[in-house]
């Protein structure tokens, strides 16, 4: 037996299940705001994901024993289910999850080989193919009336285009104290879950901090320059999928950059792109596309941010 003869005992399933555990607060808040719908979506996504993974492994002639038990595909499924609106028809979620697992993950070679975040691949395909259903969010309850209304980011986009100022838009429906009504609580739950993961060293601080900074700094600058046209940093951090993205989506290790410096740039890039897409782009929330765009940049980041080896001259 070669050295080392001891190991720390971290395993992939343990990591994955702790991530799932950290997502429970987010799910709970969503159920509180939107009713039992999200639970069903999570269940549908999980079942679909496991089935697709088994199918893909069979097609690739690999054993499915350990692969199905490692939990990585469940994380993809739950993230996707939490990212889509709770009113989404379940068969669309099946389609999205299948795309995420079969194309986003297995077409590239399975665990550890995907260059793109599989959940975001599924989300982007759904968003582009079914824009109406994917942007129909219910008014947060209780009560859960299934009445739909504009999300805060929607309202800003439309309101500004119609000539209202930020203050006027903020006074309207769909806004909570800090950010979007409802969404601000989801973001808080994601922050709590993420902080727990950080404390347990499951994820490292570089990507979340960099992403939130990349989102907050341009937001604050723009808000300072033109408060009427741009919401502030706190609003951006508390709306849409900001926190979920920072702690759960962008931190997917397989599609993220490798070195610490690379991760800082990667996270900052996602934050910046999210702000740009939210402020000037056609979609209300930019996290999914920002993540996919930065996934494209990862090979370049990896090449350019190799850390200095002990004994190499300090540049």
């Amino acid at each position, binding site marked *: 037996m*070669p050295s*080392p003869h001891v190991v720390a005992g971290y*395993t992939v399933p343990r990591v994955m299940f702790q991530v799932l555990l950290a997502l429970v607060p987010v799910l709970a808040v969503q159920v509180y705001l939107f009713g039992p719908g999200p639970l069903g979506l999570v269940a549908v996504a999980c079942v679909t994901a496991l089935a697709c993974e088994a199918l893909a492994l069979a097609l690739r002639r690999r054993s499915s024993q350990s692969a199905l038990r490692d939990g990585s595909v469940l994380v993809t499924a739950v993230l996707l289910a939490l990212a889509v609106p709770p009113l989404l028809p379940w068969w669309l979620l099946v389609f999205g999850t299948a795309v995420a697992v079969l194309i986003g993950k297995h077409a590239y070679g399975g665990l550890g080989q995907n260059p793109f975040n599989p959940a975001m691949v599924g989300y982007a395909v759904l968003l582009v193919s079914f824009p109406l259903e994917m942007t129909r969010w219910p008014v947060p309850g209780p009560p859960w009336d299934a009445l739909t209304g504009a999300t805060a980011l929607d309202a800003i986009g439309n309101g500004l285009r119609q000539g209202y100022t930020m203050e006027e838009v903020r006074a309207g429906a769909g806004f909570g104290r800090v950010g979007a009504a409802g969404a601000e609580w989801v973001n808080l739950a994601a922050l709590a879950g993420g902080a727990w993961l950080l404390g347990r060293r499951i994820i490292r601080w570089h990507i979340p901090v960099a992403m939130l900074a990349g989102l907050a700094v341009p937001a604050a600058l723009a808000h300072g320059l033109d408060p009427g046209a741009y919401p502030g940093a706190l609003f951006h951090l508390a709306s849409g999928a900001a926190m979920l993205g920072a702690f759960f989506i962008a931190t997917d290790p397989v599609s993220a950059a490798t070195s610490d410096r690379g991760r800082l740039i990667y996270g900052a890039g996602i934050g910046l792109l999210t702000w740009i897409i939210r402020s000037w782009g056609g979609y209300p929330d930019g996290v999914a596309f920002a993540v996919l765009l930065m996934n494209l940049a990862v090979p370049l980041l990896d090449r350019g941010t190799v850390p200095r080896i002990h004994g190499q001259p300090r540049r």
Partner: protein
Amino acid sequence: MSARAVLRGGLRLESHKTRPLEQPVQRLAAPTTAVLALDQGSGEEARAIVPPGACVRVGTPVAAGRGAAADLHSPVSGTVRAVEPRPTVGGAGTCVVIDSDGRAEREPASRPLAWATLDGAALIERLAAAGLAGLGGAAFPTAGKLALARAAGVELLLLNGAECEPWICCDDALMRECAADIVLGARVMLAACGAARATIALEDDKPEARAALEAAVAEAGDERLEVVLLPAVFPLGAEGLLVAAVTGREVPQGALPPEVGVVCQNVGTAAGVARLVTAGLPALTRIVTVTGSGVRRPMNLEAWIGTPITELIAACGGYDDKQPPVRLVAGGSLTGRALGSDAVPVTKGLNCVLVAAASDLPARTTEMPCIRCGDCAAVCPVGLLPQQLHRAVQADDAAGVARFGLADCIECGCCDYVCPSAIPLTARFRAGRERQRLHEAERRRAAEAKARYERHRRRLDEQAEAERRAFEEARRRARGDGAGDR
């Protein structure tokens, strides 16, 4: 005195050193049959100079050192039975097997050394003749190292008492009990290598050792010596990392510490030097930690080189029936080498015998693909990216392994330890290095063949040219003689 923390990554590991340190170091009797491996841990074999049947005494040289192998001396008096292959820590190697006559007669030449009267070069010669080798594990000849240091003009002698492996505590015991020897050895080595000062570095989880060393340094009254405390992080005891932690200077890639003005020696080596000057004894014993849940009474033993490990384990009460051993490791839990049998002999490089029971070795899960979590890079003390390196090694990509620093890997095992996918990174890197070495040899052969081919072509061209000129000459002469007749 001062605690400086300069180490990227690394691991803080749970220590398993308390039980062996509960009692003082126990001296073992000399073995009835001494098995002296010609390769004492450095990777190179010394040259046996005694034939079977020769009579030897304690301290008689039995092998002449060459390259990375130091001189080897007999720990017993008796007769050489054979010079033959035997199982050793490194697998198998040629060993000089000596049957003891039980009388322990010493070589008459072994006398204390008036070291203060000798100059550096003479001291180094005596150290070489005594077969002193690095007791930290590498077993490199001490004299050779000091000579290199002297030639490079080092200004600091760094004594390594860090002992960062969680199960090994032989150096801790030595520092507690023989601090005066270590200080004396340091002073002798200062004279040998010409350094201006000496620093004894140890980790802060050894308060008794620190107290003993500071007392010994104070008693010696030599202002050139000091004791420095470092945080207990694995693998701070690795030479290059220790130099960087204590001096702030990094040894350049591919170079040795004398390049930055430092020479490192293990504290055990220093104690061995002291024993040479006080008693005239060559390198014959060393302290070995015998530990692990699989042995009844873990303790530190002062064992004679050449003692079979079975005798060490027997001195510790034998194997524990309640926790049967599942693996025998020579060295520590992270960098040690698994042994195939307990019949191997003690060598100068053997610092610990870890008799590991199942409870000591966490089970390894089946290997999974790399999920690029980056934990390995976070703990690598040398600043490598093990996941990228692994990819390059698997692809046999020479440019990639050079870029990601395969040559700089110290095989500490930190990356393996934290990998959630249970990838045997250290073993892969070791194999990868071997493959790269062979590729390098192939490339060299190809380059030589190309050069010879070009010389061959040049030779043929010159020959053809010479023939042509001779022909032209002959034709010119023929034309000059007669009118085109021949």
